[in-house]
């Protein structure tokens, strides 16, 4: 296979498309079949470990190179870590889902197919080495998330959460697309590895980075865009575990991780990431301690950890990146099993409420051990992967020191205290025996639910005890940054770095977290005291509500539903745009003659007088006669102008028009206005008059200016005259109509035919009605079907 990476991604999508066929046989088997492909991907990824640790594996599809459309993929250290999360955890969660969704669950078939499709597009996202490719997969994950959160659309909470997640992430995605185009054009390439190797300078690039950051921050639920993530907990727990803990929400972090090696030195890049990341870490950690729903507790925990990852990836520096990659892996490996535990607890007890669960720990020791392993990794307890990452993170900021180092380091310490506090709260809430709460009954969880939970929780322990594997990957990724000194170049993940400041910070975090949990009543009081009506969720609702109101306002104004208003807008636009151009660029011809020929004076007078009289006339018949007068006078003007053919046509058409008018007028009332109708508003009529005369004068002036700009008749006219003898016609007009421009004349005849058919059908329809209804008295009655409509 020439393109193994692209083939893998496409295989996911193809299998997802045919998965419903399997679901029809057995729903559980569908999840099993779906899990095979991510598992195979994981094996393939691990088999390429050596390549990922050296130069990486890359491939490019040369689709439209001139347009920079060259989907390219790359497997490197970061990509391999993400494969572990996306495909490894994906396979485990799919197996878990087989038992989580009931055998007969109606939701199972679509969830199986969607989860697998999501695994495919997420794989494409983390392996993409081309910004445009990345963007396509990025939006596909948003759509998959929308469908998975929305589920069947039966519940309001699902719909609301799905729309919120979609609006927020797609808003970020679109601004990111703009940023990608800026960055790609500035760099001359959309290949991420090339851009990072030679980052382009300039103000446009700074704007591009801010726009791209907007995409990363919304996708990874960073403050102030974070509320969509807790809301998305309305999705089934396996979906939350996979999309909203292990993989999709990491997309923003991964994007930052991919671009940071090129841009971490620029304040426009690292300052917003580090500041917002820290704020997110603290807000998420604080809110997680107050949640009573275990799933929402974990969701805020995820928000907090994503902030932590953002800080690490955005900060730049050798040790920070070692820490970042380790934490990225660790977070997936502890957060996914914790979500799976919540799903199991929910499944066997029927609740996730901290206030209702009691005594579960005694009944389910196996579940407790798995949870403790995962939560301990989250809290950063030695022997677990989370500890290694957190140690490295403290080292990364405390070693260089300085104001920035200490500020960020202390911020991370407070965030870690919160993390420990909500980790303890999670274990306490799920398993502790609480005084005054009845011990819950619980069935034994199915092995299919327990096994994936154990595997991922144990992975954190194994990798924590054997740091070498993670260290190799992290060192490879961090090698993009130059080491500042010997400490940085010699830093490796290890269980024991000796008595050091980071170890002190770790101990402080554990002690502080335990203390916060013991004093939870006081913390709760502080939380209440700090409560404000201002929240990011409220902000989202205000923005969406405001947009809706604005849309209605604009639609109401623009789409007034009144024909005169529309026409007036058109005329005013003509006056404003071409009118301005005329005033600015037009030139009044100096040699304008007063009159072309004497006969134009009386004929012109007839036209003017008859037209103006049209405005005052109230009888329909008089109006038609006046129009006829205008028409005949214009025919006369044509004669004066030397256009007898035009005049002939004009006289003929005018006569026919009059006849047609008379046929219709015979059935209509004599006056235009219904005498009982209210008289038209004078000021409205005055406004119409002003607009109409302004537009009329504009046309006349444009005629003068444009004709003044013309110097010669078109050369085609001379050719027509010269060639007319060849057609056998003396009359040049006739030659043009039936020979030179004969096709136009055919088109004109077609228009006449269509109009005649339309007119005939309208007239005949009336006659048909009359015959059927024994005479519809004009204006007094309506055909049956119309009466129903008109009421």
């Amino acid at each position: 296979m020439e393109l193994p990476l692209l083939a893998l991604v496409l295989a996911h999508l193809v299998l997802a498309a045919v998965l419903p066929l399997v679901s029809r046989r057995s729903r559980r088997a569908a999840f099993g079949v779906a899990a095979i492909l991510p598992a195979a991907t994981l094996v393939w990824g691990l088999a390429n470990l050596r390549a990922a640790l050296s130069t990486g594996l890359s491939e490019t599809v040369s689709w439209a190179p001139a347009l920079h459309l060259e989907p390219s993929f790359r497997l490197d250290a970061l990509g391999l870590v993400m494969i572990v999360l996306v495909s490894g955890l994906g396979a485990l969660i799919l197996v878990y889902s087989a038992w989580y969704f009931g055998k007969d669950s109606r939701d199972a078939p679509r969830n199986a197919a969607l989860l697998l499709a999501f695994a495919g597009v997420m794989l494409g996202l983390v392996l993409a080495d081309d910004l445009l490719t990345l963007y396509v997969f990025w939006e596909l994950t948003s759509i998959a998330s929308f469908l998975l959160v929305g589920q069947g659309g039966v519940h309001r909470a699902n719909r609301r959460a799905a729309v919120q997640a979609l609006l927020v992430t797609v808003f970020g995605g679109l601004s990111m697309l703009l940023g990608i185009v800026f960055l790609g054009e500035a760099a001359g390439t959309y290949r991420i590895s090339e851009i990072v190797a030679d980052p382009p300078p300039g103000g446009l690039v700074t704007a591009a980075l801010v726009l791209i950051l907007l995409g990363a921050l919304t996708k990874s639920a960073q403050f102030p865009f974070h509320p969509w993530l807790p809301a998305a907990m309305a999705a089934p727990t396996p979906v939350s575990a996979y999309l909203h803990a292990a993989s999709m929400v990491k997309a923003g972090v991964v994007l930052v991780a991919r671009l940071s090696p090129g841009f971490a030195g620029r304040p426009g890049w690292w300052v917003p990431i580090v500041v917002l990341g820290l704020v997110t870490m603290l807000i998420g950690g604080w809110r997680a301690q107050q949640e009573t729903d275990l799933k929402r507790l974990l969701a805020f925990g995820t928000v907090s950890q994503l902030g932590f990852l953002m800080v690490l990836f955005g900060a730049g520096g050798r040790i920070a990146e070692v820490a970042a990659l380790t934490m990225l892996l660790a977070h997936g490996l502890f957060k996914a099993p914790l979500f799976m535990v919540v799903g199991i607890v929910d499944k066997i007890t029927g609740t996730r409420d901290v206030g209702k669960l009691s005594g579960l720990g005694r009944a389910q020791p196996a579940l407790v051990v798995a949870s403790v392993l995962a939560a301990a990794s989250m809290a950063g307890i030695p022997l677990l992967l989370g500890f290694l990452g957190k140690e490295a993170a403290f080292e990364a900021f405390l070693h260089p020191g300085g104001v920035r180092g200490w500020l960020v380091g202390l911020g991370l310490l407070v965030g870690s205290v919160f993390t420990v506090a909500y980790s303890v709260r999670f274990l306490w809430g799920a398993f502790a025996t609480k005084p005054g709460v009845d011990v819950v009954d619980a069935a034994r969880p199915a092995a299919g639910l327990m096994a994936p939970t154990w595997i991922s929780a144990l992975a954190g322990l194994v990798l924590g005890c054997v740091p070498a594997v993670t260290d190799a990957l992290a060192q490879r990724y961090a090698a993009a940054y130059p080491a500042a000194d010997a400490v940085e170049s010699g830093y490796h993940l290890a269980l024991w770095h000796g008595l050091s400041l980071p170890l002190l910070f770790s101990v402080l975090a554990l002690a502080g977290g335990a203390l916060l949990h013991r004093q939870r009543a006081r913390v709760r009081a502080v939380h209440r005291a700090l409560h404000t009506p201002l929240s990011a969720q409220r902000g989202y609702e205000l923005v969406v509500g405001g947009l809706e109101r604005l849309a209605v306002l604009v639609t109401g104004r623009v789409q007034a539903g009144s024909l005169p208003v529309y026409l007036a807008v058109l005329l005013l636009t003509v006056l404003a745009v071409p009118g301005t151009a005329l005033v600015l660029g037009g030139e009044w011809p100096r040699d304008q003659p007063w009159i072309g020929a004497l006969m134009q004076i009386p004929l012109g007078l007839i036209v003017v007088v008859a037209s103006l009289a049209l405005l005052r006339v109230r009888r329909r018949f008089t109006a038609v006669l006046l129009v006829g007068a205008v028409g005949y006078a214009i025919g006369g003007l044509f004669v004066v102008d030397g256009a007898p053919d035009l005049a002939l046509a004009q006289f003929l058409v005018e006569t026919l028009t009059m006849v047609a008018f008379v046929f219709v007028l015979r059935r209509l009332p004599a006056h235009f206005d219904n005498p009982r109708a209210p008289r038209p508003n004078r000021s409205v009529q005055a406004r119409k008059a002003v607009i109409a005369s302004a537009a009329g004068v504009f046309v006349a002036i444009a005629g003068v200016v444009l004709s003044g700009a013309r110097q010669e008749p078109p050369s085609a006219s001379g050719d027509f005259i010269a060639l007319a003898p060849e057609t056998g016609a003396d009359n040049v007009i006739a030659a043009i109509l039936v020979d030179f421009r004969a096709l136009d004349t055919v088109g004109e005849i077609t228009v006449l035919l269509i109009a005649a058919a339309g007119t005939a059908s309208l007239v005949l329809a009336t006659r048909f009605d009359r015959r059927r209804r024994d005479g519809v008295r004009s204006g007094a009655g309506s055909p049956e079907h119309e009466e129903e409509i008109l009421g």
Partner: protein
Amino acid sequence: MITLNLGMTIVLAVLYSVGFYLLLQRSLMRILIGIVVLGHGANLLLQLVGGPPARAPVLGTAPPELFADPLPQALALTAIVITFAMTTYLLALGYRSWVLVGHDEVQDDVEDRRIAERERPEGSMSDDTADTGTDDDEDPGSAAASSEPAATGGRR
């Protein structure tokens, strides 16, 4: 020298102004007359900007240098005929409308007016936000909701 003369400029201004004004009215018959007047104006404009009065472009009646420009004449001729086609069709439409509705007034679009009076769109997202519904006693993210069997679908 092809400049439009002043007298005809005034005639054109009057024709177009009257045409636009009638077009802005609500009576379908007035609108139709407005279109006819505008058509006259447009045909005249086409012809006039072709050049000052001259001899008819018929071979043998005058030397070709004295001919009026034949091209705008051919175009205006087409325009006259098309205007006629449109006039009769609109006339039939107005007549039909009068037969069905009993008047030939152009009414405002009721739906559009309704939208203008609303404060929020129909199916506003805030309908989903406001906690007014009763259909959501059950937590959709719960395990119970996810494993609901199809056979007893009416449980909810």
